């Protein structure tokens, strides 16, 4: 099989299995969309409940539901949520735009800063300054996100009154939205930064002792030049991997940040859907995430060979 053929086959099989998992996993949890929907005063054997059941498609045998699931995917129909009373595609659009707005800049900034600062730390490893930076960023990484976010909310929004206490916006203007999103975005940036910093540092440490670096030094290049002209590109590979992974998961959002700051993003959408067993929402969200992760990985694969000529796209 040719290279592209093999790769294509692999991706297709992976997607097929993933989509099947998307169907199976929500249904493996006890309960179904009707379990938590109607409240304690509704007798489950009532006729109106049975009607609802068939509207949701829950009374059909499992294999039939599976086939219909595939049919709707191929039709690009993501279904309807009976818990949120909206078509799933609209829900996803709504929530996705907020998650992208929040996590997108955070991810890019965090990765970039993390890569740069991490590279310098790796280069100057052992220096006092580097140790302090690493120590601080590691402490950030080690703190549970809920914890750090709640404390920053308390400090900046409550004590100092600089930021609003909750919500995506109050009045809906651009400045207002930015005001609401700033603190959560900073938190996310910090977490991404600390993670990328550590990886990059390790990677540069490895590259530092390589032959080509010594050669560059022998050529007479300054530190900065060796670092950023030669080492950086090669050391960047793990970061690219991480970025590709993160980009796919950007849509599952930062659940804890959304809870602390009372924001309606993808994270809370998926979490609520999990708890209420809202199958269409779960399936729809996981599908979108799948597509993004797989395409991001594909992109990363392509980038590898461009960045490091030692890796042949054979």
């Amino acid at each position, binding site marked *: 099989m040719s290279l592209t053929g093999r790769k294509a086959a692999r991706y297709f099989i992976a997607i097929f299995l993933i989509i099947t998992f998307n169907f199976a996993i929500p249904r493996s949890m006890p309960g179904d969309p009707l379990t*938590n929907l109607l409240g*304690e005063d509704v*007798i489950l*054997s009532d006729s109106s409940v049975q009607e609802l059941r068939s509207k949701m498609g829950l009374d059909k045998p499992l294999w039939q539901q599976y086939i219909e699931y595939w049919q709707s995917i191929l039709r690009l129909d993501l279904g309807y949520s009976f818990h949120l009373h909206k078509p799933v595609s609209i829900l996803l659009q709504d929530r996705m735009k907020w998650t992208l707005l929040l996590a997108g800049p955070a991810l890019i900034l965090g990765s970039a800063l993390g890569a740069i600062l991490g590279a310098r730390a790796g280069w100057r490893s052992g220096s006092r300054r580097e140790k302090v930076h690493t120590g601080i960023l590691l402490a950030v990484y080690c703190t549970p996100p809920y914890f750090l976010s709640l404390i920053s909310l308390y400090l900046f929004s*409550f004590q100092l009154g600089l930021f609003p206490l909750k919500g995506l916006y109050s009045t809906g203007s651009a400045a207002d939205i930015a005001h609401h999103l700033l603190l959560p975005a900073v938190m996310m940036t910090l977490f991404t930064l600390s993670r990328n910093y550590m990886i990059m540092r390790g990677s540069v440490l490895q590259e530092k002792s390589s032959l080509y670096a010594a050669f560059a030094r022998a050529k007479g290049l300054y530190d900065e030049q060796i670092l950023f002209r030669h080492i950086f590109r090669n050391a960047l590979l793990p970061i690219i991997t991480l970025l590709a992974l993160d980009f796919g998961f950007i849509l599952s959002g930062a659940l804890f940040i959304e809870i602390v700051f009372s924001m309606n993003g993808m994270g809370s959408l998926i979490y609520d859907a999990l708890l209420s067993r809202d199958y269409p929402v779960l399936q729809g969200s996981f599908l979108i995430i799948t597509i993004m992760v797989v395409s991001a990985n594909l992109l990363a694969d392509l980038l590898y060979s461009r960045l490091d000529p030692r890796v042949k796209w054979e």
Partner: protein
Amino acid sequence: MRRSLYLLASLLLLCMLMLSTASMGAEEATGEVLKIGSPNVIKSASILGDSNMGVFAHLSNPTLMKMAADGTIKGLTAGSSEVSDDGKTWKFSIKDNLYWSDGEKLTPVDVQFTFNYLAENYPAAGWMKNTVDNISIQEDGTLVFSLNKPYSRLNLEFATYPILAKHIWESIDDPMEYTNEGENVGFGPFYIASTDLGAGVIYFKKNPYWKGTAPKFDSIEIHTFANMDVLSLALEKGDVDAYYKYAGTYPYSSIDKLKETGNFEFVEKDNIGLIFLGMNLMKEPMSDLSFRKAISYAINYSEILKLDALGYGKVPNSGFVPPSMMNFKETAKLEYNLTQAKGILDGAGYKDTNGNGILEGKDGKEIKLTFLTRTDYQRPTELMVDYLKAVGIDSEIKNVDSSTWIKQKDAGEYDLTITRSTPWGMLMHANWGTGYFDSRRTGEGVLHVLDDAKFHQLCDDILAATSEDQLKDYAYEVQDYYAENLPAIPLYWNLVETPYNKAFQGWYSDPLYGIFNVDSFLSVEKTQ
């Protein structure tokens, strides 16, 4: 490179500071606003499809009847109600001065439409199809409900359904799926102007056609918070003026902090719901009455009250029903007595033959029970495990999420569970908590484990009762039944604490909906 990094960082910081100052003071003042903070988050702007939205919508679409502070049922949209002697005909007169926010007058036709419509399309009102034969309007505008059997609680049920406008809803085929984030026409003192799901706010505006007592506010805002701590902070800071949680209290551990500021007062009421130990009566040894009685002596009630409710409540009686419910009977108080507990167990045949501290059941095997626990009840469950260990019963905790809990409890896959009853939960079915135990009904939070013919008969009698005296007798019977048979053991009766900013006075609380009722919003005003 380093220098440019620092420059970038300081630029970012500057931007942050500028932004924060820029957006302050951008508040629009449109008359007097009352802001209420609530942890009951709205998932969709559907009055019938979202239970939290439904509660808030009672302000714009009041119910036919209401529960007064003393627990009696009085008219709200209805002027008066009466029932025939045989209990099969109910008559409701409709108030004459109610207008929709679009100018139309509310007529008995709207009410008739509402109940027919709900019976058809709203699962929680599905019972009406089996009970109400016909709804007709007399010449004088009185609404007549003809039932096919006596049903004493019709007026109670009608304290929960919002009255809908015929001219708006008759064109909506599927009300459960209908969402409207814009204006919702209502006939209460306020109507829903808009619902902003992203910001988590419901905006109510004064109904320009309201003819009753004028409310002191021009608009009301409900701010929902996903995070309770943030809500507490917002309350303290003054971002919201009062707190409301449907069927819930302000967290007891946060009360002191509010009291310290000196700016808050509390509406304090006895809850008609309660937290209790549910037992799977279909399994050994829970099916053994002596076993249940022994457990009731093994629980350290004052400690649970102190640790879980921080003292805001009291030790319950074996009759389960709290004193705040109508027709309360003083049954025997539950008592913590380890010797008694051990004695009963011993006498009932549960002995520790191998001396390892754990009793063996009637089948000779060691007793090991499973607690099916929801996340909210982890702490009291931990305490219970300890109490049971002290009398020689081994138990373990199975920690599950809400849907799993419902599924496994319905399948009977548990021994013990700690759960609670809501105010409406206590009132539903045949009242006095019967809805939780009658094995003929399966709803989400109910245990439906009591398969006793005597109990079933009692429930049916209550539903068919035709006089207040009859109801009172039956109520006493139910409580005696609970006390004798202990189908569940109440853990404590608690107080519902609702904080509000001292500047706002005039709150009126009813047992069903707390401070969120029409009377409250008509009387509350800003006094400072």
